[in-house]
């Protein structure tokens, strides 16, 4: 079996698995967020944090809860790292410096999981498990909660109420993420991922570049459990620096495919949740179709550019194998790279910097689209719904009515909020990159010169602002400049959009519904899906065209 065929078969298996999970998981999540029953353990938690899970919140209240919870998360994580040196169970690692602590705290709370540190050389068990792993769950739950609040905005009328953040947060964590991650962790352990609390092992006799005899240090750790939520919650922060390329995290081709499945399954299935909650599963299918077309198109493009790359070495290897694991191959690595950048995961099983010029561009463009195909847990759904609002506004005019989506009018207020949303990430990416390029010192972090060097910086801020977290590799991001700036980009790129999403949700929930007639734009039809794909590609694509031209396009078209 050739590598191309293998890649395609893996893709088919992946799609089959996602399709099987779609309806049960999507419907289950809709039930979780619509149920009026509380589990006993949930009641204890509510009592513990002093929240009343049955109080409905208006959008400002919901937003305050999101921001307060996240702020506490950042502070806690920051302190945990700063105090690591005096905490037990830290494998002897010292405290993390302020800039890097800030960066890492921002990174894990924003579901970005950008890592400017080497996991196995910086973070001990306590920070990894009590700090980072906890945020892996709750940051994903926050994303889903905000998405659900927006969906409620569409589904509800004549009320400003969007649900209760604390209930959404706790349920998302306990009823969806914890059980899902537990099952996934067992599968990963069964397939060879490690799960222990053992210390650092010195293992010897490696080729160190000159001669045999070098040694390596291998950490033990609760890897499988963190790996499971790392993918399932679209986090991406690896236990090890090598992330999913490391055999302890991702031992076999099967676990590789399984991890891709994990990171895609919630974002895709949320479209079902959306459909069920707004009372029309067809509307969910339309959004699913939009996400799936973009994702599949990107996978096809990536496989094409990675397999077709010329040069004798590449052809002998059956494609661009530099930076890819031999056990995964070009096909599976391409699917992983596209999936991780089109979601907010940012886990990597291969090095995006080593992809072909165009391949690197595809990973960047995937993030630049705002990670909406299918996007992060929750953030993908609300991101694409915002784009749907924009597309409906333009297309809705073309059918001769004031635009409306799901029975809600898209007026000046709605379009203002949606427009602010789509402004934020381009502004962050372009301004931070431009300042970094203009200042004298930051470019010293680049490993390469020319277009590839520029791509490293562009990729870093694209990844941070869009809360992806994957790194292009090459760039030394552990400087005060990059730690601080990417940290800011992550926080602004996560919470500013949430402000507008929740304000939009509030505005929609207050409206009275407009009944659908034959004159209404049918947003559940393939025509609308096509339109939405076009709007996403043109509006976000055009924003970044000049920057992409000077990075990956210049490199990819050079040969």
């Amino acid at each position, binding site marked *: 079996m050739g590598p191309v065929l293998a890649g395609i078969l893996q893709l088919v298996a992946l799609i089959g698995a996602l399709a099987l999970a779609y309806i049960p998981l999507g419907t289950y999540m809709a039930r979780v967020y619509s149920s009026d029953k509380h589990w006993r353990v949930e009641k204890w938690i509510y009592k513990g944090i002093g929240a009343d899970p049955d109080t409905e919140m208006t959008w400002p209240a919901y937003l305050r809860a999101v921001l307060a919870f996240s702020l506490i998360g950042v502070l806690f994580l920051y302190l945990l790292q700063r105090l690591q040196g005096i905490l037990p169970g830290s494998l002897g690692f010292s405290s993390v410096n302020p800039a890097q602590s800030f960066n890492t705290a921002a990174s894990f709370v924003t579901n970005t999981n950008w890592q400017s540190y080497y996991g196995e050389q910086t973070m001990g068990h306590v920070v990894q498990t009590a700090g980072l792993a906890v945020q892996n769950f709750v940051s994903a739950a926050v994303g889903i909660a905000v998405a659900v609040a927006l969906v409620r905005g569409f589904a509800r009328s004549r009320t400003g109420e969007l649900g209760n953040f604390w209930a959404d947060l706790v349920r998302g964590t306990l009823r969806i993420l914890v059980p899902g991650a537990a099952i996934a962790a067992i599968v990963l352990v069964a397939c060879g991922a490690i799960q222990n609390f053992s210390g650092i092992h010195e293992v010897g006799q490696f080729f160190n570049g000159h001669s045999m005899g070098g040694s390596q240090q291998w950490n033990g750790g609760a890897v499988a459990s963190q790996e499971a939520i790392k993918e399932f919650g679209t986090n991406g922060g690896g236990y090890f620096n090598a992330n999913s390329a490391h055999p302890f995290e991702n031992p076999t081709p099967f676990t590789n495919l399984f991890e891709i499945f994990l990171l895609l399954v919630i974002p895709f299935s949320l479209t079902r949740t959306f459909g069920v909650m707004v009372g029309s599963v067809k509307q969910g299918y339309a959004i699913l179709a939009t996400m799936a077309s973009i994702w599949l198109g990107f996978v096809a493009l990536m496989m094409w550019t990675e397999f077709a790359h010329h040069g004798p070495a590449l052809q002998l290897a059956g494609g661009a194998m530099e930076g890819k694991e031999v056990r995964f191959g070009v096909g599976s690595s391409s699917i992983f790279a596209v999936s991780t950048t089109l979601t907010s995961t940012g886990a990597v099983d291969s090095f995006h910097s080593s992809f072909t010029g165009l391949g690197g561009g595809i990973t960047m463009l995937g993030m630049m689209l705002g990670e909406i195909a299918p996007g992060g847990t929750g953030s993908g759904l609300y991101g694409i719904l915002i784009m749907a609002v924009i597309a409906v506004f333009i297309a809705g005019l073309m059918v001769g009515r004031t635009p409306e989506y799901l029975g809600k009018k898209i007026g000046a207020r709605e379009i203002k909020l949606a427009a602010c949303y789509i402004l934020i990430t381009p502004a962050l990416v372009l301004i931070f990159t431009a300042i970094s390029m203009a200042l004298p010192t930051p470019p010293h972090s680049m490993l390469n010169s020319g277009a590839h060097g520029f791509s490293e910086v562009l990729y870093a801020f694209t990844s941070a602002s869009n809360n992806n977290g994957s790194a292009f590799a090459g760039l030394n991001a552990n400087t005060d400049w990059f730690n601080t700036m990417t940290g800011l980009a992550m926080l602004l790129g996560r919470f500013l959009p949430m402000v507008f999403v929740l304000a939009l949700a509030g505005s929609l929930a207050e409206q009275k519904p407009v009944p659908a007639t034959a004159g*209404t734009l049918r947003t559940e039809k393939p025509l609308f899906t096509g339109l939405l794909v076009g709007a996403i590609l043109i509006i976000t694509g055009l924003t970044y065209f000049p920057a992409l031209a000077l990075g990956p396009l210049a490199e990819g078209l050079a040969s």
Partner: protein
Amino acid sequence: MTTRTEKSEDSMSTATPTRAPHSDVPTGHKAPEGRVGAGLFDPKQLLKSLPEACRKLDPRVMVKSPVMFVVWVGSVLTTVFSFKDPGDWFGWTISAWLWLTVIFANLAEAVAEGRGKAQADTLRKAKTDTVARRLAGDTEEQVPGTELRIGDLVVCEAGDVIPGDGDVIEGVASVDESAITGESAPVIRESGGDRSAVTGGTKVLSDRIVIRITTRPGETFIDRMISLVEGAARQKTPNEIALNILLASLTVVFLLAVATLPPFANYAGTHLTMVVLVALLVCLIPTTIGALLSAIGIAGMDRLVQRNVLAMSGRAVEAAGDVSTLLLDKTGTITLGNRQASEFVPVRGTTEAEVADAAQLSSLADETPEGRSVVVLAKETYGLRERHQGELAHAEWIAFTAQTRMSGVDVDGRKIRKGATGSVIAWVQEQGGTVADDAGTLSSAISQAGGTPLLVAVKDDQGARVLGVIHLKDVVKDGMRERFGELRRMGIKTVMITGDNPLTAKAIAEEAGVDDFLAEATPEDKMALIKREQAGGKLVAMTGDGTNDAPALAQADVGVAMNTGTSAAKEAGNMVDLDSNPTKLIEIVEIGKQLLITRGALTTFSIANDVAKYFAIIPALFAAVYPGLDKLNIMHLSSPDSAILSAVVFNALIIIALVPLSLKGVQYRPVSADKMLRRNLTIYGIGGLIAPFLGIKIIDLLISFIPGIG
């Protein structure tokens, strides 16, 4: 019936069942077949509006359109930089085309406004300073029309121009309202009832009336009309505001993309000049729609004015596009003004032809529309030539009166009568005849079918007897069924409003093909219906003219008052139809839709255009440092300068090329949303992707022939 229209008057002389629905009210400037889309555009208007377009270059005016203001600032910048480097032909050329881009945008707006100005001038002529004859107690005093106050009483006699808006409180007069409506036939204005409103600037042709002034000078109907058609009172509509926000945010996005480019380019080893950066920015921001947006709005209002409809706000025009329920008065809108004879039904023992002949003879002296329609039906179905009253010697004509409710003729010893059932039966019995049994059954069958029966009776040597029944029914205007079908496909529900009983209403509703009806409608019923529909999130449009329609007109999202109506109705509605043709509501909805479609289509076109411009400019800027990027030069443009210039020139010319479309509006057909979207996406989306590739290539070819550039 709570509403009446002027139709009852003019149909006296013109009612025939074969007329097209749109020809009932002749107007000075009619659109062909009442379809939206046709608007006049004369290229000469462009030249004429040029001075106005240049006046609009004032930054205080420009800042109102965020997109074009950015272009304006860009033009200033490139001009300044060109002065610093006067030998650079490229900078000068780009500057010139950027200024042209701004002027073209202003031109579009100026042309749109110019069309309203012509109309306003005509109106101003009507508003010459008048002298009012004000009543002070019993004496009359002459005061200037501008000094009238609300509540003043003025007298107008034949030949006087009415000095201000008001209600007739005494007398009846014929008034020439052509100054406002363009309709030369005079109309009757009388005290009391729904035809008491008079408009300042119109002229009394006969009789004497006393008017109570209801509007302050300067706020009269004609003043408001002038400011509306001139666009002076124009405010941005909700959808226009929303679209402006989206365009502004796209402008900011592209501003970011361009503003962050210099450090990237410096790193790549090339320096971008200010002229090039501005050119790139102007090409990317949505200038096409930004330039034409206000022209589209003005032209939309203007299309209504051309159809003699005055919208008091642009908001109402937009709301018209969203309407999902239309309340239509039966009389005058769905049916012709009056009931008409539709068939002759003989009783046992007589023939249809006999009934027809007798009916025609007995109706010759009946000048009501019903009577005329009997004569016409007999002529059309039985070839009975209409006999004139003078033709028959020794005939004694009995004219129809409201008291006898019968008409007829006594000739050659025959007495023929036709009239209301009760009256004719009484007459037959009085003449010693008997009424055939089936006369009663036939009559009630007609009543149940929603019609009105008239009996035809004769007294001759065989005695007095009933010959048969004339079936009078409401005649649905031609083409209404199709029209309602179209509306249904557009997702609009039609509700017929009538004072008829439910039985009659149902029969007519079925025949006309409306979706629903409201029978025995009182103003309260109407109001309740509107509120019910609105509670379900629907937008409601209606027409009305009576004072008791005013609350409903105010409640409806689109309330079209008839110009013949009372001032209360006109005040309550948000549109006034000068032709007083309720059928026009359908056209108003179409114009509203067309306005929104035109905006959407040009926005889509504008955004789709950007793809080609990138393919022209990016390789031009960077192929020198990264030769691989020349692969993006798929248009094979001759040189970097020519590529940038071609994109800028295309960007400017496309505005002028689309001015006619923005004024006329995108072609509109009443089809479902899906079909409409598919069609417009293909033309303006796909077309918008392809057109600039061709346009830029052609301009580049032309530029490359200019020596020293190519």
